[in-house]
């Protein structure tokens, strides 16, 4: 391609983002050229700041600009209840719900021997340490409902079981507002397994 160097570098940077192919990268790069200089500067600053100023909370592993994070510092939240999730995005999803008043622990992944990810490679050791000192009474395992997420939840539950802490797994089944007829067989059979007394 015959682009001047500054723009070809910009295109190259855009292609590093997920979901952006070469064509979209070119479109975005040319769009940047048309933008107001102030907007471009803001954009560049946000990118750098997001990287420089955000760290992982030393307690729960969530992304934060202060350590410990605002959720860990919030004294109105119940410290005896911890929800274990795979990803910072899962914390944000849970927080949108506004119903959960406990704290979190972010694993940053799931155990997968095939990809060389063992329990020590994700935030399992820090979770075990937390359970030792913090007087936690219940652990909600909210890892993803696939093989790796399920295995990770089962692994943690085996590890923690001797301590007597109550452990729960989030339910899986039908999405709210959905139609029964559109559910696939596997989800339906899970939903049936987890049915409740009325």
């Amino acid at each position, binding site marked *: 391609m015959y682009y001047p160097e500054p723009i070809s570098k910009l295109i190259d940077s855009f292609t590093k983002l997920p979901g952006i192919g070469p064509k979209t990268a070119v479109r975005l790069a040319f769009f940047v050229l048309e933008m107001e200089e102030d907007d471009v500067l803001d954009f560049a600053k946000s990118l750098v700041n997001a990287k420089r100023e955000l760290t992982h909370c030393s307690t729960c592993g969530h992304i934060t600009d202060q350590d410990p994070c605002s959720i860990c510092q919030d004294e109105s939240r119940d410290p005896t209840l911890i929800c274990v999730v795979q990803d910072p995005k899962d914390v944000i999803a849970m927080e949108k719900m506004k119903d959960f008043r406990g704290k979190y622990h972010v694993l940053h992944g799931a155990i997968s021997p095939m990809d060389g990810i063992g329990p020590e490679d994700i935030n399992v050791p820090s979770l075990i340490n937390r359970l030792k000192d913090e007087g936690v009474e219940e652990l909600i395992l909210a890892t993803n409902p696939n093989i790796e997420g*399920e295995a990770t939840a089962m692994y943690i539950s085996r590890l923690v079981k001797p301590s007597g802490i109550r452990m729960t797994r989030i339910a899986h089944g039908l999405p709210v507002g959905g139609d029964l007829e559109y559910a696939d067989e596997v989800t339906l059979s899970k939903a049936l397994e987890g049915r409740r007394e009325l």
Partner: protein
Amino acid sequence: MYIQELSLRSYRNYDQLSLSFDHKINVIIGENAQGKTNLMEAIYVLAFARSHRTPRDKELIQWDAEYGKIKGSIFKRNRRFPLEIVLSNKGKKAKLNHIEQKRLSDYIGALNVVMFAPEDLNLVKGSPQVRRRFIDMEIGQIQPTYIYHLGQYQKILRQRNHLLKELQRKREADLTMLRVLTDQLIEHAATIVDRRFRFLQLLREWATPIHEGISRNLEQLEIAYDASVKVSEAMDLETLKSTYQEKFTDIETKEVERGTTLAGPHRDDLVFFVNGKDVQTYGSQGQQRTTALSLKLAEIELIHSEVGEYPILLLDDVLSELDDYRQSHLLHTIQGKVQTFVSTTSIDGIEHDALKEAEIFHVKEGTIDVQK
């Protein structure tokens, strides 16, 4: 059910092709390497979204082409609907009634196909893998959730084998994760074996009388399941699970030593007996063929009883492999009720009423002429 129309685009040696078929018998005639099997394979791929000849979808796309396409118009339960498979370097798409199906288990089963090719004569004497594939594909097309369990099982198995390799190297092993994966594996292993048992019971019901018929009441066929774990068909799902649990507890140390999973449905096999003798070891070539033929014919009846309609039968270059008596038994059984595709280099020597009213297609270098 039957295929009314089939169109191919950039599929193997076919550039572009569009055909309408007879509801009963279609004979595809051509010299070797002209595209007979490719046409049969296309119908198979339309049903199973994968080839019976190769695991690599890329090979199905015509040389130099970006993508290949198979489209079929299917008539089933008094309803006509289209199926479409699009193959490209990036992967494949399976569309049922114009709607893309994200999961193959939602697609497979829409079109039921039974294929009988020379390789299938190996069903009896070939490797256990051939028989496992046979049983898995057949259950899969009548019970879509079976494919889901099989897929999950294979994923967990890969994870477990990786972990076992790692443990084998380390020596100071933490076995907690292994036990987690064992529990996960057992969940699916028990379901798979349970479904295989129920399928075998059905298969026996059909195959035994058919085999008697082909062998003129001289041979009695029995089918047994040879499992890597002491399970039996009388066990319910819970008993199966606890049996697997015991086995895996027993062999844990050995599995870590060897660095691989040593038991489970992926190591099981089928054994066929004729008059009490293991056909694989002691049967004659003829008995092995009769057994393979009985199983295929049983499959047709089984699908009919489970799905409510006869599947489509693909006889790829196999009629000439059978003697006159077996040939006419086969053609007689399917006559008038099963849409059949027969591929052969020559129609001479196959004399049967069924072929008289057949639609004849001549294949030459990737083009097809219809003979009226």
